[in-house]
């Protein structure tokens, strides 16, 4: 390609192919936020794996569950999970904020405003989180 470009003749079309750096996303805050949002995928995947590790530990009985809790208490595991929580949270916020663009709801002749669609998503988030928390720790006295 480069060689062809060097043999420039009068009627040869010039290449107009701006080079984009691999690190283009470091140039602007909004670009960086975009890549950060994209990277949340890895942490969503890790969260699902972590969920399966919990299930597997519970399946193994008290000893294996205890070993799992010990493993999860290691500083590096806490660091990975805390980072994952931040990024999965970032995914959730960006996802709910974009929901109005993806989902247009009509009631009769009027469109439901986007803010209401976002708000209903956040409300669902709260409801689901409360249910999950209640199932896991709000079960009352030791059974």
């Amino acid at each position, binding site marked *: 390609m480069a060689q062809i470009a060097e043999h420039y003749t009068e009627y040869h079309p010039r290449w107009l192919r701006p080079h984009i750096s691999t690190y283009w*996303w470091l140039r602007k805050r909004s670009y960086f936020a975009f890549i950060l949002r994209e990277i949340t*995928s890895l942490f*969503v995947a890790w969260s*699902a794996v972590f*969920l*399966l590790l919990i299930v597997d530990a519970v399946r193994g009985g008290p000893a294996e569950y205890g070993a799992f809790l010990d493993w999860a208490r290691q500083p590096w595991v*806490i660091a990975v*999970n805390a980072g994952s929580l931040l990024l*999965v949270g970032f995914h959730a916020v960006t996802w709910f904020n974009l929901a109005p663009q993806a989902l247009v709801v009509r009631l009769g002749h009027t469109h439901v405003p986007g803010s209401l669609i976002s708000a209903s998503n956040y409300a669902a988030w709260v409801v689901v989180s409360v249910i999950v928390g209640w199932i896991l720790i709000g*079960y009352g006295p030791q059974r």
Partner: protein
Amino acid sequence: MIKRSAEPLLWMLFSAGGVVAALVLPMLLFLFGVAFPLGWLTPPPVTHLAAVIGHPFTRLTLIIVCTLSFFHAAHRFRYTLYDGLQIKHLNEVIALLCYGSAIVGSAASAYLLVTF
């Protein structure tokens, strides 16, 4: 390899997975990844968790959550590699690796939860 006709389905899985992951995963991560390990809250006893996971509804929910999350992640990561690193020439290899991992993860979650 990946036919064009598969794209709508993949985008649908991406969307559904995005919703499910956003709704369910943060609370689970907060509890098991941060609050229990740091001693902020007492983790539930194994008998309680076994009873919760033993319920068919929980198992079905967890299979759906894991499967959709894996496909969401695979699809988004595939496009991150395209846009971020501009490696379009490895198109098919990347797609195969991403969706292949999602299929393996989904199969593992189905196996774990069906045989729980």
